[in-house]
């Protein structure tokens, strides 16, 4: 926690994006999380992503539950809409908000406690329904606010700060999200913005349920030897399957790559995901193979990161419900109540 506000002075080379804002304009209040918290790095990555995407801050809605992670939306994109909901209930509030106004950019920020314990049911259903959103879990494997008990994502056998081994099986949020029908699933690490920022950008451009599991070490309670969510452990075991370059619009790819080293996925809105191969052949559009690779990684003790699964032609909640293009909250009485003759017609058709 810091007592002075971040100074308004900035680097002389700071430039404005197409929306007319500098990166600094996408910041929020100064963080009150512990010094060194991975969540702050994720906030910084979100700031960078929104800046690079030329997003208008007032078109963003940030929703969160309860917990350290759920405090984080205060610390990025200050000029946007924010809703700190009930513990574990952010998905249903976001679903409702999205139904009411489909024009906003929805960002759900949650933690492993909020999404994998109290909110596990809500998490599953928001993915099933394909709400158009970017759902980020800041995953540190520990209940930081209550002083360091294991959370549901802590790996079996990992050691707590007090020296106790975890006996419960862990919930893998990535596997669960793919299984439940999320159409964009990735995993990353708060300590690697080169990987994280393009993933957030691609997720925000994805029209459907996009989920990112971001390992975010808890410096206060889960950054010791024996932890599997510490800076050191994640760095040593990080197995990045690909590097994403996110390209807006249908720009031509001008950089030359060795044949076979780049896979290009075109998303529904025309944006391109250029996946640079880092090792093995990996096709993120193959759902079954993705689940298999993630599970294999878990067994081998790897932290598999990168863009793990993407459906290039996703359907979202509004597609499924066949709602009109205009946001429902803009409809006037005349649109909503077409009159008795229309009602008579409908009633007649049912007789």
């Amino acid at each position, binding site marked *: 926690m810091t007592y002075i506000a971040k100074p308004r002075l900035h680097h002389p*080379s*700071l430039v404005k994006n197409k929306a007319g804002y500098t990166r600094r304009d996408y910041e929020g209040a100064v963080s009150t999380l512990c010094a060194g918290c991975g969540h702050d790095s994720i906030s910084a990555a979100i700031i960078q992503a929104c800046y690079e995407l030329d997003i208008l801050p007032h078109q963003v809605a940030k929703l969160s539950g309860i917990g350290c992670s759920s405090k984080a939306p205060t610390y990025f994109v200050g000029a946007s809409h924010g809703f700190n909901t009930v513990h574990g209930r952010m998905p249903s509030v976001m679903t409702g908000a999205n139904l009411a106004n489909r024009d906003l950019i929805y960002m759900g920020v949650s933690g492993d406690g909020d999404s994998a314990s109290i909110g596990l049911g809500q998490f599953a259903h928001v993915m099933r329904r394909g709400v158009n959103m970017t759902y980020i879990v800041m995953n540190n494997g520990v209940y930081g606010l209550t002083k360091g008990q294991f959370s549901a994502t802590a790996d079996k056998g990992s050691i707590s700060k007090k020296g106790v081994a975890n006996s419960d099986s862990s919930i893998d949020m990535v596997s669960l999200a793919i299984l439940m029908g999320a159409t964009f699933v990735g995993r990353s690490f708060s300590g690697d913005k080169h990987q994280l920022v393009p993933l957030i950008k691609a997720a925000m451009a994805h029209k459907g349920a996009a989920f990112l599991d971001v390992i975010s070490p808890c410096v206060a309670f889960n950054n010791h030897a024996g932890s599997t969510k510490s800076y050191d452990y994640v760095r040593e075991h990080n197995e990045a399957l690909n590097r994403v370059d996110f390209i807006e619009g249908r720009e031509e790819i001008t950089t030359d790559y060795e044949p076979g080293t780049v896979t290009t996925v075109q998303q529904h809105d025309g944006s391109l995901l250029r996946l640079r191969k880092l090792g093995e052949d990996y096709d993120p559009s193959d759902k079954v193979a993705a689940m298999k690779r993630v599970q294999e990684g878990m067994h081998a003790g790897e932290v598999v990161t990168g863009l793990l699964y993407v459906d290039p032609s996703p359907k979202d909640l509004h597609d499924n419900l066949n709602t009109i293009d205009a946001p429902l909250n803009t409809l006037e009485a005349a649109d909503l109540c077409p009159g008795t003759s229309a009602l008579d017609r409908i009633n007649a058709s049912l007789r």
Partner: protein
Amino acid sequence: MLRRRLEFLLKPTDIANPDYFHKVVDCQWACPAHTPVPEYIRLIAHGRYSDAYMINWKSNVFPGILGRTCDRPCEPACRRSRVEDETLVKGKKEPVAICRLKRVAADYKDDDGIKASMPKAPAKNGKKVACIGGGPASLTVARDLAVLGYEIVIYDQDPKLGGFIRTQIPHFRLPESVIDEEVGYITDIGNIEFRHQRVDSMKKILGEGYDAVFVGSGAPRGRDLDVPGRKEAAANIHIGLDWLSSVSFGHINKVGKRVIVLGGGNTAMDCCRTARRLGGEDVKVIVRSGFEEMKASPWEKEDAMGEDIPILNMLVPKEVRHEGGKIKGILFEKVKAEYDAKGRRSLVPSGDPDEFYECDDVLVAIGQENAFPWIEKDAGIEFDKWGLPQLGETTLQSTKKNVFFGGDAAFGPKNIIWAAAHGHDAAISIDKFLQGENVEERPAPGVNVVSQKMGIHEWSYDNAPTIDHRLKVPHRAKQEALKDIMAEVELGFDPQLAFKEAQRCLNCDVQTVFTGNLCIECDACVDICPMDCITFTENGEEKDLRTRLNAPAINPMQDLYIGNDLKTGRAMVKDEDVCLHCGLCAERCPTGAWDMRKYYMEMTHAGQSCRKM
């Protein structure tokens, strides 16, 4: 993966080298006397004016004088002028008003307390040193050596000590009381004798049994004008330096209504403003060069123009017109600047018709020269082809081993703060020489680096940078100022303004110190840094590294701080250029890998600590 060649990797920064952090304190680094600027500015903000004064007094000897007249090399160097946001400061990035804050310390100090805390001369050590000239260089030598027991004799042609400070700087810029006070602090030490006596022979001085001689006789000769009509109109053409001196001593108290001042330096500015106060109604400054290239400090030009004195540029005097021994005016040729392939400028006739300006008096301030007619050719002191003495660059020792030079007499005309710096250096040399030590061995500065952490979020300095723009020093109303040549124009900051201006200082002496083996590479410092000056990346060649940081390091004059010992093998690279020293990196650091430590550096002056025995 970058292809790295080990020999090109930047080496980890050696913060034990006193120069490294010194360079980060831009103002102190730029100051010839290396005054610890941020330290005294903080003391001013705390209202501890006497402490601020004494830091200055130790370092630059003349705080009250310099606080009004310094050429302030510190200010163009000030980091503030690189980091301000144009949109918040009316489009103009400006340094902290360092010089005028120095004056605040002098104005508001406790005079009696200061007087009581001044050093007193110990018992005489039996060695005698002569100082030729009573200006700032000699006075500094006298101060540094008198407190060590040396017996000092200062010679000057003028009836009072001060030299250039007293004779050339008009009293409306520097009241005589300030000179008397600060010269008094030196002469009151004891063991210092002043002889009102012009020195005409070096050999005679050398024959009087002095153990060492210091020459601080300045650059006393004003350059003259060499155009047709100069001689015939001599009664109304004055050499600026001599004229100012005569005004200072009250020998001249009026001037014609129409005055032309030739020259573009600070002496020209003093001449024209003095002329405005002695009856000059239509006073012009006419300069060969363009406005921007003029040698005068920007603020002095501003002050002159503020007193209705136009500055005309690109005009070269061609002929003085006169009638019956009385001047009519000067004819000027219009010139323009041309640059050769190497970028050297020459002034060539523009082809425009000549311009004629009428006048009653002309003040010539086109430069000053060194002159040593009193040093005999066979005195054993060698001079170079420009007529300057051959000296050791830092020792200031001449080819005659017991004769030392300093101030304008050493390397040509500079300024007061350089004179003070030379005085300190010469005093070290004289002391070492007279103690039988090698004058080439120079003492290292005294350096202290201490953590400023007071608590979890508490630092011993005010770490929140302000966004206030530079404050103007209040001036006396123009009509009033022009009426009285003794009335000081600048009124100085009052304590409230001084506090506000002092808060603009970024505390660049409170250094960001990085300890790599404590770092867990969590990026907290990178994320919080308002200036994006911290990057964790692969080490590399400096030129390449500068381009691939989070924000480009565009100022090659400023170092990159390289930290190593990181677990990932990367390097921590911090661009010192734009750091606000706000301490947020250290506040957000969970492991104490960053700490804010105050770097206090004091130059070592003559005395026991720089002797071997």
